[in-house]
């Protein structure tokens, strides 16, 4: 008997009586069918949002940044808020695929594909903001260390914005590679099942001639491990560097050593919330409840309550440090952040990010799909406010009271943000239709240890005494 025993304390990662064939069948089904009406509606609505975003950005580029509400005092508003927000969301995928892979967390297999896709789309959305917030976007390439005819003219390597360029582009590249390499065996599966020529051809190209030989698999595993190793530090570094955009400045409320861990925790927090939002929908729409189980959702929710508490501690630490510093500018900055004209943004942040995740201490709520869905949205609203609070409420009342002012976004800024939702969901709808949303190959790895039916086969073993069990294990073939 081939023994793949996993403790019954762990719940199955795949529900139902699944065979390898069944797994393939379930996951490939949406790809091989005509899309539903719901898909079309969703897709075209996303396109509409994307179109509006493109219009807003065109308007801004044509007329100038002045069409936004930012001003001499508050130089960054919704643009960088959205940037940091999207980058934060983009953290979950790599965390799930890389760090959890290294930690051998089996449950990641159900969610990693969608989470990685989300990461890539979120980083694409995030990238729009630093590009189009430039006054002269047509010169955006100045940030690249390109050889040029202007003498030895380099970008400024001591600028955190430049570090951002490298951090985000590296992160995007590695995430994309990681995601795509995982997709290769699954594309091959679809190719092999394809009934139309076009599908066979396209998935054939996409699967790079995967044949499923042992050598293929060996290399695949090696690559996964290398990429996981590469991405692990990136998960921590990207948001650390994004936090440097603020932490290396002289502005009270920005200039804080706590920022890197605080930003990373916040990023994981918002990323997991976004993964939850999407998975709850995907499992429902594509009937993948057997693969993305309540257990998955609960695991995600545990991470949310942990990271939510970390950011809560960070918020309170910031307030404490401001008071403890006895520096009037620090103290006032936080006073105006909490009690000034932007009080509502601070308290929205506190409520959504610190108070609401605490409900996840209750197992019943962690395993409640509707509650999870609602809370995942609340958390992302809260995290948006966190970035808004950090950026805008640090700037609007800084050193010299003469320059204090207020900032409200205009329709172009909002349109830009809405447009990135359009971009994100357009990509996600295409992904859900054309790509296997759950990693087929990886599910199969865990199916026989963690699949419901296989676990049930192990039930008799549970009845055995320890001596008998040891005997079986030792004589297992």
């Amino acid at each position, binding site marked *: 008997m081939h023994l793949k025993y996993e403790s019954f304390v762990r719940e199955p990662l795949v529900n139902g009586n699944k065979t390898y064939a069944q797994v393939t069948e379930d996951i490939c089904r949406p790809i091989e069918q005509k899309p539903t009406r719901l898909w079309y509606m969703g897709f075209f609505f996303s396109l509409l949002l994307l179109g509006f975003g493109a219009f807003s950005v065109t308007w801004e580029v*044509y*007329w*100038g*940044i*002045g*069409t936004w*509400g*930012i*001003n*001499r*005092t*508050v*130089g*960054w508003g919704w643009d960088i808020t959205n940037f940091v927000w999207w980058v934060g969301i983009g953290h979950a995928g790599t965390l799930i695929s890389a760090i959890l892979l290294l930690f051998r967390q089996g449950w990641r297999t159900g969610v990693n594909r969608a989470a990685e896709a989300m990461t890539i789309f979120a980083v694409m959305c995030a990238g729009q903001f*630093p590009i189009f*917030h*430039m*006054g*002269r*976007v*047509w*010169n*955006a390439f*100045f*940030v690249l260390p390109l050889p040029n005819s202007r003498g030895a*003219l*380099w*970008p*400024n390597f*001591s*600028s*955190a*914005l*430049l570090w951002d*360029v490298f951090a985000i582009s590296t992160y995007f590249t590695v995430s994309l590679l990681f995601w795509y390499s995982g997709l290769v065996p699954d594309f091959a599966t679809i190719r092999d099942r394809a009934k139309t020529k076009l599908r066979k051809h396209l998935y054939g190209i996409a699967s790079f001639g995967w044949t499923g030989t042992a050598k293929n698999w060996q290399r695949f595993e090696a690559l996964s491990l290398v990429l996981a190793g590469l991405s692990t530090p990136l998960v921590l570094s990207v948001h650390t560097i994004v936090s440097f*955009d603020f932490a*290396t*400045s*002289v*502005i009270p409320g920005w200039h804080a050593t706590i920022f890197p861990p605080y930003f990373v925790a916040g990023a994981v927090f918002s990323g997991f919330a976004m993964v939850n939002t999407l998975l709850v929908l995907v499992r429902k729409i594509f009937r993948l409840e057997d693969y993305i189980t309540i257990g998955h959702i609960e695991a995600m929710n545990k991470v949310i309550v942990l990271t939510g508490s970390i950011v809560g501690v960070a918020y309170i630490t910031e307030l404490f440090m401001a008071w403890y510093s006895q520096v*009037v*500018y620090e103290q*006032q900055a936080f006073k105006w952040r909490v009690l*000034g*004209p932007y009080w509502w943004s601070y308290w929205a942040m506190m409520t959504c990010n610190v108070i609401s995740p605490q409900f996840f201490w209750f197992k019943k709520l962690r395993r409640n799909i509707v509650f999870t869905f609602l809370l995942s949205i609340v958390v992302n609203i809260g995290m948006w406010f966190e970035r808004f609070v950090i950026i805008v409420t640090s*700037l609007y009342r*800084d*050193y*010299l*009271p*003469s*320059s*204090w*002012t*207020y900032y409200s976004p205009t329709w172009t800024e909002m349109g830009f943000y809405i447009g990135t939702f359009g971009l994100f969901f357009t990509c996600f709808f295409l992904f859900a239709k054309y790509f296997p949303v759950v990693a087929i190959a990886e599910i199969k790895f865990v199916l026989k240890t963690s699949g419901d039916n296989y676990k049930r086969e192990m039930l008799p073993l549970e009845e055995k005494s320890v001596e008998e069990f040891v005997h079986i294990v030792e004589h297992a073939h």
Partner: protein
Amino acid sequence: MSHKKYWKGIEELEQTPEHQQAVANEFQQDLPVLGLSDKLLDATTPRRDFLKFLGFSTVAATLAASCEMPVRKAIPYAIRPDAELLTPSVPNYYASTFSDNGDSCAVIVKTRDGRPIMIEPNTLSTVTQGGISARVIAATLSLYDTARLRGPYVNQQPVSTWDKVDAPITQALANAGGAVYLVTGTINSPTTKEIINRFLAKYPGSKHIQYDAVSYSGMLLANEMSYGKRALPTYHFDKVQTVFSIGADFLCTWLAPVEFSAGFSKTRKILGKDAKNATMSKHYQVEGMMTLSGANADERATCKPSEYGKVASALYAAITGGSVNTGSKNVDKLIVAAAADLKKGNGLVVCNSNDVNVQVVVNAINSAIGANGTTIDWSATSNYKQGIDSEMVTFVNALDAGQVGAVLIHGVNPVYDYFDGEKFKKALAKAKVSISFNDRLDETTQACNYAVPDNHWLESWGDAEPRTGYYSFMQPTIAPLFKTRAFQDSLLKWTGADLATDNYHNFYNQYWVAKLGGQSNFDKALQDGVAEPASPTMSGASFSGNVADAMTKASAVKGGAYEVVVYETMAIGSGGAWSNNPWLQETPDPITKATWDNYVMMAPLTAKTQFDAELSGINEVVRERRVVKVTANGKTVSLPIVVVPGMHKDVIAVAVGYGRHEKVGRASTNGQNAFPLVGFNGQTFGYASEAKIEKTADLYPVAITQTHLSSENRPHVREYTLEEFKKDPRGLINERKEELKHFTHLEWEGHEADDPNADFDEEGFVKNGTMYPVHEKPGIKWGMSIDLNTCTGCAACVVACQAENNVSVVGKHEVMKSQEMSWIRIDRYFSGNPDDGDSIQAIFQPVMCQHCDNAPCENVCPVSATNHSSEGLNQMAYNRCIGTKYCANNCPYKVRRFNWFDFNGADAFADNQYEDGQRDDINDSLTRMVLNPDVTVRSRGVMEKCSFCVQRLQDAKLVAKKEGHPLKDGQAKTACQVACASNCITFGNVNDKESEIYKVRYEDNKERVFYMLEQLHILPNVNYLSKIRNAKEVLAGNGDKNNTRDEMANQHI
């Protein structure tokens, strides 16, 4: 020559056939395309064609995709003009004289390639003493105003030739039956007066009426009653010990503010090294509204304008030993203290009341304290204002009665600025012929039959006599841009003169050559711009007025529950062309920091309790202001409330010059005309009247640049009383030493602070306050020092900077979004109890880029677009900037300015200038003539900021180099420094120990030196000198967060 042969190999030596073949073959190795090479060359599109295709398609794609670039007209000098007159790109400077209805100012006009682009003060004038005002500087923009008339008009229609106006006008004047009236502003030009006399002589019975929109009739008549002279004396503010001003804003708008601020600043200079014996003048102010002078006063109290007579009488009583009771304890206290000071000598009392009786009392006081002959000079009178209100009123009545044949109007605009403009307009229609010389189709010109536009003063010959015997000359700096004609020439023409020979220019030359005794004297005078008496004398006058009667009448003036003051702003004045000057419109008012509008200034308490317009800590959130209806003298205007601490609780103030007709210019239409609120008491106009105020449900947005009013007890402004400073001059040094001691020395180096006499160790702070290596700064290191004691907040520097550096105007809508672009701003902080107008103190702090040596903006720029020069300048490479705005965020002074839109048409997109109507006219080819060619016009999307006028610094260095000596101190001056009438900006090379800036900073005034936000170790190159108030106490916190005196800061308003 030898016949040695060199060979590269044995093959070459032997010339093998293989070798010969190889040499013949150009490509000795096979082409990388190997077997294809033959085919490739024979292909239908061979290799060479490929390049053609590539080239063609690239060009085609470029042409198809490229935006059409706007064509800019730049016409080179094909034939070089007179080399002595003009070298392209080398500026010429001409002395001239600004002149605007009696206001005059000796100036130097900088012209580039024949265009006047910058106006600077003429330091040779002892009248203005090197001072200038925002309005004078902004005149270049008015020259290029698109709303100016481009030729004569008949009945609102342009006509092509002068004959078409001259012939009918001459006819009409002849038929006017002698009832010809020439209405002008105050004329203080001797030659123009001659021309006018000649014109009046031609038409017997004709009259010249001088009319001042904001008049000083009350003073003129009072002086006639008191001294027998209908004239204004010369006030010597540079000689005063104590000045007591009753409502007169002599630092901003009253009579001759340039002359007065320049003079007064001399009495406000304090040297730290002489601290123990420091003296400065003392400035008392009693007023109804918050004026700039009030904001700068040492001691201030408020009363209603109707009580000015009472205040003057009480002051007279206090000086002559009587009892003081004005009904306000604060005012009484002030009067008693002031009386004692005034009696010490060199006192001066001024008052802005246009009430003859009040001015008689003021004269009596000045006489009693011996001001005549010490601070008031009657030997040379001031000629700024000569209009007598009643003459104008009589004329309007005659006009209304149909008794006037012809009206000629020059410079003034009675339909707009006469207190009963409606009546004037109706009456004007009854005149047989009406002619306007105004430069645009303003309200009055629209009602006239003929418009015969006068030249702009920058296009004119002329002169001015601001003070009797002190002449100031005007010469054209550009040929008339349009088909306009000098006012004097028009008058001459209509006397029948042949302008070819008998013209104003000829007359002017003859007049001055004769008067100055020869052509060379005149040439010199013209070059200097001024001719002044060699040894000025000073004399008093004896008071012979009936003071008792005046006091009774002045004290008996009845006030109202509310009173409205109609005032001129620093920028717009009484209107005229200034209303359509975007530079001035966008210059924040010194007190309210509002732009583009007029409004009702109101005390916080009144606004809060009566009109639902609270002054609170979240002012910056709400741009919408409550609108109230103000009714005075039977007329009503509806305007938004701007709450201003320091106003008397029952006094409101409304500025004139706003709410103009759209033909005056698109920038001028905001706000309402406040002139109808002016009253007439049968003798003089009254600029303060009883008013009724009604709250409305309307709101109106006002564009205010600084919405937070208090300094929050923060230490970026420093002020001390004179007493405090004398007692402990080193207080500030010790405070800096204490604050930064951990950074000035390393722990193991010992404690420099142990030596109580040591100065702040700036060098140690630079070196030890950082973990990075310190750069040596040899050669030039530019530095600036700003004396907060003499800065009055007048904003001349703001406009000078705008003119010099091509700083964009952004329009009201953008100012409301805090997207303004000014490179230098004047921060104004109030302290005191907002509910008690008497307690308010104000401080002004000009802030521009501080050129930090350790600049936080520099290290955050991803592309190094902002970087540091070896001379200590924080500089911008506009071409490199991509506009991330990180530098602006990271600037603790918030002085960096972003080009939010294509404000200058410097963009790749052709038609994307944001259209809100107010800025359009500043971007066409006419208005763009005002741009300074030495300064890059920034395109949309780049950051900009103060450059310390780097173009001037470079120019000065080049001049010094050509002259063959190191740069001399004072050779390089920034535009703001030159424009400052009170001389509060010192600039120069800090490494030069002989320089003024070095002396200020490290020798003469080191006790008062502080740097804003010094503790950040960003090492700014701009320092400030603390403000010393000659007052009992200072309310602001100076960094003491437990300060309870400043209620404004405690309420976070």
